[in-house]
Structures are given as C-alpha cells and as structure tokens.
C-alpha cells in the first residue's frame, strides 16, 4: 500500500515538475516576444534613431559654436571636428550598429535586467542609470497606488459581501444605480476634485507629493504627504468602487445561490460560517486572480493620474521617457512590467491548483 502511494506521489511530482517547466518556458517566451515587440515599437522602424541623430548633431554644432578654442580653426577643420564628435557620440549610443543587432543586444540586456543608461533622463540624484531612475520613482507610486489598490480591494469585497447579504436593500440598489459612474477613469474625477478642492475652495494642494520646503520632522512630513494623497485617493476610489463592488456583489450572489449554500442554511449554520466556508472559499481563486491583476495594472492606469496630479512616480516617469524618446527607460519599465505580469500569472497557476481541487495540474498540461 505504502509503495503504491509513494509511486503515485512520485509520478505526481514528476508530472507537476514537467508542467511547471512547460509553463515557465511558455511564460519566458511570452515575455521575450512581448519585450521584443516593445523594442520594435519604441523604435518605430528607425524613426527614433533619426531623432537621436538629429539631437546629437544639434548638440555638437552648438558645442562647436560655443567652444572658444575652435574659433581659430578654419570652417573645414571645424566641420571635421564636428563630424568626429558626432561619430563618437553615435558610437556611444550604439547608433553605428544596424538596428536588428542593437535590438537583440538590447533585449538580452533588458531580460537580464541589465537596464543600462538612460539617454536623456536622470534621477533626481543625478544618476543616469535606468535602474536608479526606476528605483527612485517606484516608492511614490507604491505609496499612493499600492495603498489605494490594497485598501480599495479589501473595502470592495467587504461592502460586496454586505450587499449580497441584503440583496435588494437600499444600499444594494444605490450601488447598482451608481455602477455606471465607474466608467469614467480616475483622472477624470481627478480634474473635478482639483477644480473643487484646490481651485475653488483652496483647502487642498493642486498636486505634487510634498509641500515646497520639505518638512524636516517626520510628523509634518507624513501630514504633508497625507494631505497630498487625499485627492488622488478619492479620485481612484470614485472611479473604481461602484463598479467593482457591483461586480463582486453579483459574483457572490451567484455563488450564494448554489445548492450547497442552501443546504448549509437549512442545517442552521451561522451566516458568518456560511459566508466564510461556503461562499468565500470557492470564490477565492477568482478573488486572488483579480487582486494580482489589479496590482499589476496599477502603473499602466496611473500614467495619466500621475501626470494630472503631478505625482513623481513611475507613470509620470514613463510618460517623460516617451517624450524624451528615451528608449532605454521605456524598455526598462516595460520589461519590469512584463516580468511582474509573467511571474504573477505563474504564481497564480500554483495558487489555483492549491485552492481549487478541481484544477488537475497534471492531466491538463498547458491548457487552461
């Protein structure tokens, strides 16, 4: 008996290992292709190269005009100097190599998280390393949108459970009625809030993360941070809470109508137990997926929010990178996003398998 159990376990282990390897390879291939496509688009078929060449030419000619030691040279000699400088700079940026060669090298570096140097952007501390720029901009985004994402998620589910308990009640009807309000994005609510609370009433700041002289003690620092966070938080809340709560509520309603829930009710189990064991438990995989995807989707949606609220985070940095044609920064951020997405999906597969006994890891292979 023990032997059979053991062999079964070992074969399960083997199948799981094969499955995991397959998924990993698939995920990695997905990330590679995704990143490569981003590099292609970020270069627009050599268009960005032309822009960069133009910028270099302008920079160098300007430097030549200002360089006093070049005044004595003849115009031909000066042209020669300018051309040499241009070639040198282009080599520095790798513009002398054909695009495909660069793209492949670029991708290799990106995938190994060797993100390289930004072409025009710098971090506030003055570093040109893409890694420093991203690391510097990450905390503001995490503080604001991490907190709002987490809080909203918990609150939404909590409200939704309450609503599904009192189906058809006043609050339920209110949320159903307000659900269409969530089709407007957060920045849209943002401009209204700025208009009302910053421009008309003047009680909250227009944007930014800190008061102009940065407070030196941590109490004032935190208070200033919180004051600047109110409007973006409210905007995000307004744009999400109604629709998400409505969706969760509908979702819970479907599950609370299953036969086994009726059965539990008939048994006279307390409603808390029914909620936890009979409604939440089978919906947990969906809840977790949605939570993970919310977290990843954060920085995409907040490009505009951060621009509108002047919040010094990743989203605004990304937009600045696009405006500066700073391909390394664009690719760096995309790579990190792609990795996060892939890793999350991978972890999700596991959580699914653990939480949902119906998912049979081994037999299904790569197909969901």
């Amino acid at each position, binding site marked *: 008996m023990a032997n059979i159990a053991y062999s079964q376990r070992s074969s399960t282990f083997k199948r799981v290992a094969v499955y995991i390897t397959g998924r990993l390879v*698939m995920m990695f*291939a*997905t*990330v590679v*292709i*995704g990143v490569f*496509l*981003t590099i292609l*688009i*970020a270069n*627009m078929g050599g*268009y*960005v190269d032309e822009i960069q060449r133009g910028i270099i030419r302008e920079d160098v000619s300007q430097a030549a005009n200002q360089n006093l030691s070049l005044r004595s040279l003849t115009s031909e000699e000066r042209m020669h100097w300018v051309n040499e400088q241009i070639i040198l700079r282009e080599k520095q940026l790798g513009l002398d190599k054909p695009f495909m060669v660069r793209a492949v090298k670029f991708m290799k570096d990106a995938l190994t998280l060797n993100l390289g140097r930004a072409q025009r952007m710098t971090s506030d501390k003055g570093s040109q390393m893409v890694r420093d720029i991203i690391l510097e901009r990450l905390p503001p985004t995490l503080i604001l949108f991490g907190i709002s994402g987490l809080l909203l998620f918990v609150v939404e589910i909590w409200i939704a459970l309450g609503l599904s308990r009192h*189906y058809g009640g006043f609050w339920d009807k209110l949320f*159903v*009625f307000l*659900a*269409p*309000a969530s*089709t*407007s*994005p957060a*920045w*849209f609510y943002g*401009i*209204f809030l*700025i*208009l009302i609370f*910053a*421009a*008309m009433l003047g009680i909250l700041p*227009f944007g930014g993360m800190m008061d102009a002289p940065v407070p030196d003690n941590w109490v004032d620092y935190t208070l200033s941070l919180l004051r600047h966070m109110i409007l973006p938080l409210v905007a995000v809340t307004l744009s999400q809470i109604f629709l998400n709560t409505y969706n969760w509520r*509908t979702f819970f*309603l*479907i599950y609370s*109508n299953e036969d086994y829930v009726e059965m539990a009710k008939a048994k006279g189990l307390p409603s808390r137990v029914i909620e936890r064991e009979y409604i939440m438990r089978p919906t947990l995989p969906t809840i977790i997926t949605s939570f993970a995807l919310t977290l990843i989707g954060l920085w*995409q*949606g907040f*490009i*505009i929010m951060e*621009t*509108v609220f002047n919040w010094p985070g990743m989203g605004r940095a*990304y*937009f600045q990178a*696009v*405006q500066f*044609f700073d391909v390394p920064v*664009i690719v760096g*951020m*995309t790579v990190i*996003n*792609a990795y996060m*997405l*892939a890793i999350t999906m991978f972890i999700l597969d596991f959580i699914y398998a653990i939480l949902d006994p119906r998912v049979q890891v081994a037999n299904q292979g790569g197909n*969901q």
Partner: protein
Amino acid sequence: MNNFFHELRKYPSVIASLILISFLIGVSIYAITTIPYEEAKRLWRGGEEIWYTNPRQAAPEWINWFSKNKQAVSFSLRTTNPGVSRTILTEENGNSEIIFSIPFDYQYDSFPQELMIYFSSTFTAKQPYADVTLITPDGREIHLNNFALINRQTYRLSQDDRLTRWLRNDNVLQALFRDPQVETPTPLKGSYSVVISAYTFEANSTVDVELVMHGTLAGWAGTDHLRRDLSVALLWGTPIALAFGLLAALGTTFTTMVIAAIGAWYRGWLDELIQRVTEINLVLPFLPLLLMIGTFHSRSIWVILGATILLNIFGGAIKTNRAIFLQIKESPYIEAARVYNASDIRIILRYLTPRLIPTLIPQLVTLIPTYVFIEASLAVLGLGDPELPTWGKVINDAFVNSAPYQGLYYWMLEPAVMLIITSLAFAMLGFSLDRIFNPRLRQI
C-alpha cells in the same frame, strides 16, 4: 420584438439613456451638417483672421443668468447688421462723405475690455480720412480721434495714447463708459452710438467699417486662449467621440468573438497560436504602447483608433469567449449541423457566434465610453489629434493654460460635462441591457 420594447419600458434608466444618446446623435448631426469636416479643421486651426471678434479666455454668456452683476457680452457689428446706418453724401467733384452710425445697447455692470473699429477701404492715390465720435446715453459727444486710412486698418481705443492723455485715465474704456455722476467707476447703462464720418477723395474710393467690442463674455460656450469659440470643439467633439467609441467597441468585440470561435472550433495548432498571441498581448502594456505610437508615429485620431482596435483584439475577452464556445460546441444543434455537412465557416458564423450576441451587446455598449475616454486620456497627455477639435484637447488646453488656477472653470467643465453625458448614457444603457438580455440574475 414588441415584447422587447415592452420590457424596455420597465427600465427608466434605459429611457433616460436613450434620451441622452439621441441628444448626442442630434448634436453630431447638427455639427456635421452646419460645419463641414474641412471647415471644422480650418476653424480650429484658425488664428486672428478668423477669431478677431472674440476676446481671449472669455466665459460663456449664460454666466450672466446666474449672476446679479452682469458682465459685458462681446459683439461685432457690420454695416449689414440691422440698426447700423450708412449715409453717403457725394459732392460734384467726386469727393464724398460717408457717415456710419453704429448704435449699440450697453446694459452691463462691468466695463468692456476693448472697443475696436476695423476699417477696410479702397483707393488709388488719395487716402480716405476718418473721424470717430462716441455718443453716450446721456447725450455727450466724445470726439475720439481722426486719421487717414490705409487699405486695412484697426483702431483700438485702449491703445490710443492721445485719448489716454486727454481723458487723464490709463483705462480708456473705463473713462468712456463710466457714469460721470457717480464717484466709484460704474458703467453708464443705455444706448451708445459710434459715429464715423469717412471722407473719400476719389470717385471709386470706398470705406467700410466693423465695430467689435470685447467684453468679458463671448458666445454660448466661451473662448479659449487663442480666441477660438469653444462651441466648435464641443459640437464637433461629439461625432468624433461617438465615432471613435463606436468603431473601437465594434471592431474589438466582434473580431474578438470571431477569433475566439475559430479557435474553439478548429482547436489544434490554430487554437494554440491564438492562445499564445493573447498571452503575449496581455504582457504588452496597452496605454504605454499607445503613448509611444502617439509620440513617435502619428497623433492622427484614425491611427490611434486602428492601434486601439489592434491591441485590444487579443484581449482577455478571447479567453472567456473561447470557454463559452467550447461549451456551445458540444450542443446537439451543432452536432446536427455537422451531420448535414454544414461548412466550418457556416457553423462558426451562423451557429456558434450568434449564441454569444446577447452577452456581447451589453458589453459592447458599456465599452463605448471606455474607448471615448481613451481618446480623451491621450488628448489630456497632449497627444490629441493635431487637427481635429476634440473634448479631450479642450481639457488639455485648459490645463496647460492653467484654467483652474485662473478660475476659468467653464473651460474645463464644458467638455467634461459632454464626456459625462456620453459615459453615463452608454454605461447606463449597457448595464440595463445586461439585465434585460441576461435575466438570470433577476430571479435571485
């Protein structure tokens, strides 16, 4: 069908949203018929020649309805306007005197920003000569200035140094329009009149004038920093937003559905390929890619529309649709179709996909505002279409020119209200349709 409409009547939100949508469609039709596409582009690009009659950043006229303190409304009067008279007295030697009398009513509590007279004249050698007088409601005749005319000439009262010195007031308009009996500067209300006597010294020489007053209000929508009338953008923004939202929603929803059906029907490598492409597409960040396309490639709204559709076809919806199709595929009626040798394409297009339409239509309607907002979002980041007037571009202009700091709320609120109407109308309709088409939830 009758049943369907009967059902509709039970949902007041459907009626409300249908009213809003017909309003939007009405505005679109009005915009397209009164201002042709090319004309809209020309107006929106237009500079001083088109919009000289408007002041900069003037609030809309209806502000006066809500305020006791009536602000001056801008206007322009030509000789063709009723009330404006032109008398020509010709002498025998060919010289003539043309007297323009331009009366206007001034019933406002604030002073105008500027009063201008645009002269246009024709002559060969001898310049015509003009003499300008303002007659106030209390009968004072104030001689403003006289000068020789060139072909096109603008006389701006506020920039007339002679007048400034003579009135001993830097603010010429305030000095001219104030009530002399009252200590604090208050405008004298009543009918004013500008009388221009123009003298021509040649037989074929002509003179024409236009009186333009810049108040602090203009038009029913107000103006922006380039004197452009915002009504052009509000009107034309409607068909653009509707077209963008509708095309994007239709393009993505139906293509996605067909692709999912093909994958579910054929299975095998085709299905695998579709699955993998979807996964890759999910890794690609949508909005950041759109930003790149907008910045590097083209900001044209039609390019952005194409990119939006392409990037959304292989979205998460493929997975959900496919799962449903896999179930439908096993239904007996599909089996029957297979038995009588229906072609694959026929089965996919005629038997499989129609089953999904009831769930897709509410989704499609709800998606429309999402796409309208994508266009607006890009415009707010400064990546709006360079030629066409859109709501998002107006919001962006307002933000860039610091409208909220200056208290120019109308500038942001007007396009925002249009966006709200659009999003609410379609979202409400979509949600209600979902409850009508998929009544499973109603019984709970």
